């Protein structure tokens, strides 16, 4: 109904010359409500996010660097870093390949049940992590559907690092598909047609024309999946087995320190994870800026 009254965003600049007629400076503060909306935004952001997060750094600084380092670098904690970061990288890499294949299939091919597959890709976003955790454990336990198939081959998944990998693959998959899919949808076919006309083999076209265009989106999805996997807790703890030095992830170390009332330990490990989150967040923002710049250029004909 409103669409008849309100012109589309694209048409608006031409449709409303009156609003644009004024000098630029006058235009800047035409809309009211900047003060209250900005004020509330900063207040709520500080109250819920910034002040609580700064507590981690202030607390760990309060204990001194020696205490921080001693708590953040015990062999058991270092083993958890290696496990969490290593498996998260591996899971994100596996998702990079299969996520690209799924995004490609959803955009380029027709197949039965495509709409359902497209909708269910987001399942890991919607399914509570604890549910995913116990479901994967039931599947891969020795008597589970998949566990009993793998047992004769001597492959144990549940309660080993392999189980953690499975959980991290589950939660990371939509990140790759959902960042690559829109770029693939928007991609013009002209470049591929030109490549084909110039005699390029299909694989050459994919490698030299399509893949470079997808690269920023692939890297963004990879970084998002990686960041999520490192911090993931709910879906992992049930299937991990949580053996010290073998299958303890870093978030679990924070929990176990807290349960022993070792606040210095918990805070120190949390500070390490937070610094890592900040760095990765900055990298993701940079990648997204790169990605939108590149797609902006691609989109213009």
């Amino acid at each position: 109904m409103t669409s008849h009254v309100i012109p589309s965003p694209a048409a608006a600049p031409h449709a409303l010359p009156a609003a644009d007629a004024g000098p630029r400076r006058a235009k800047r503060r035409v809309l009211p409500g900047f003060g209250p909306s900005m004020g509330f935004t900063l207040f709520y952001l500080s109250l819920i996010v910034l002040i609580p997060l700064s507590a981690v750094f202030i607390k760990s600084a309060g204990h001194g660097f020696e205490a921080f380092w001693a708590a953040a670098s015990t062999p058991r904690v270092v083993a958890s870093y290696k496990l969490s970061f290593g498996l998260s990288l591996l899971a994100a890499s596996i998702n990079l390949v299969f996520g690209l294949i799924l995004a490609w299939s959803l955009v380029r091919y027709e197949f039965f049940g495509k709409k359902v597959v497209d909708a269910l890709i987001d399942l890991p976003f919607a399914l509570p992590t604890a549910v995913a955790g116990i479901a994967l454990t039931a599947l891969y336990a020795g008597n589970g559907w998949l566990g009993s198939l793998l047992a004769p081959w001597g492959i144990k998944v549940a309660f080993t690092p392999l189980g953690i990998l499975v959980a991290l693959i589950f939660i990371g998959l939509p990140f790759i598909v959902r960042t690559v899919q829109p770029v693939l949808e928007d991609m013009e076919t002209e470049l591929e047609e030109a490549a084909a006309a110039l005699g390029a083999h299909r694989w050459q076209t994919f490698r030299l024309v399509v893949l470079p265009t997808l690269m920023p989106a692939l890297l963004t999805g990879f970084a998002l999946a990686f960041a999520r996997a490192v911090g993931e807790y709910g879906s992992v703890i049930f299937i991990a087995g949580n053996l010290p030095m073998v299958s303890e992830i870093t978030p679990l170390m924070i929990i176990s320190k807290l349960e022993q009332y070792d606040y210095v330990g918990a805070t120190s490990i949390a500070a390490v994870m937070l610094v890592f989150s900040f760095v990765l967040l900055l990298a993701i923002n940079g990648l997204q800026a790169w990605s939108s710049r590149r797609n902006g250029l691609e989109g213009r004909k």
Partner: protein
Amino acid sequence: MAGIVSSLGVPQSGSAGRYERNPATREAPWVRITLLTLGLAFFGLFLIMPLVAVFHEALRKGWEVYIAALVEADAVSAVKLTLIAAAISVPLNLVFGVSAAWAIAKHDFRGKQLLITFIDLPFSVSPVVAGLVYVLLFGAQGWFGPWLQAHDLKIIFAVPGIVLATIFVTFPFVARELIPLMQAQGRDEEEAATVLGASGWQTFWRVTLPNVKWGLLYGVILCNARAMGEFGAVSVVSGHIRGYTNTLPLHVEILYNEYQFAAAFAVASLLALLALVTLVLKQFVEWNAHRSLKEAST
């Protein structure tokens, strides 16, 4: 974290024929079949099997056990607490999202990108760390711990802590959906309304809100799903007091750790149903958003 990857921008699938008919953009049949088989096998193995397993395990001991697990007193109180946490956190984050999007998308100021990055922070912070920060503030050893104890107030190991942790992890969902949408729509319509004499509220209710209603709803749906399903952050601040500070996901954990598998999966199946409903609603909103976009452009 879903908000970072908004799929409202994804055009509806179904136009793949144009790639398959074009010789320059189509692969040999064996390549297509191999890719489809690999992709769908991966999809079935990692996404469908766990979903099916939840319902299979839930009903393994029959309907009686299933129903009994859902009507048991602790389960009912877990449902209530989950609903309370969502009922508080979703509206608060909705108001925040709208206000942040209005400030960011409709005005110019320095440090805008930094502000957006800060709003994204809860997405990249581990849920466990999110829970920990509130323990550091309000726990017995925390900054405000002694004061709270002196006034006989409890936040950690009580309902307020659970609500706070839920607000934290669902903080960016609505804002992250609205900011890019309102930025893309520009300010001309609002400016025209203001120039024509509409007040700020009138402009917002009659011009901005109708334009972003689908994006808003989309953000609320995702925010609600996460609010009801959050586990890690809530687990840290809850203290796991049965019948008092247990949300549904925590109740699942307790039952599971007590080897009451059928009951654990029965409660889990409720959450899985919630996830499926979320996905259906999400599709519905996407479909409507694209339809209204199409209508607007013709």
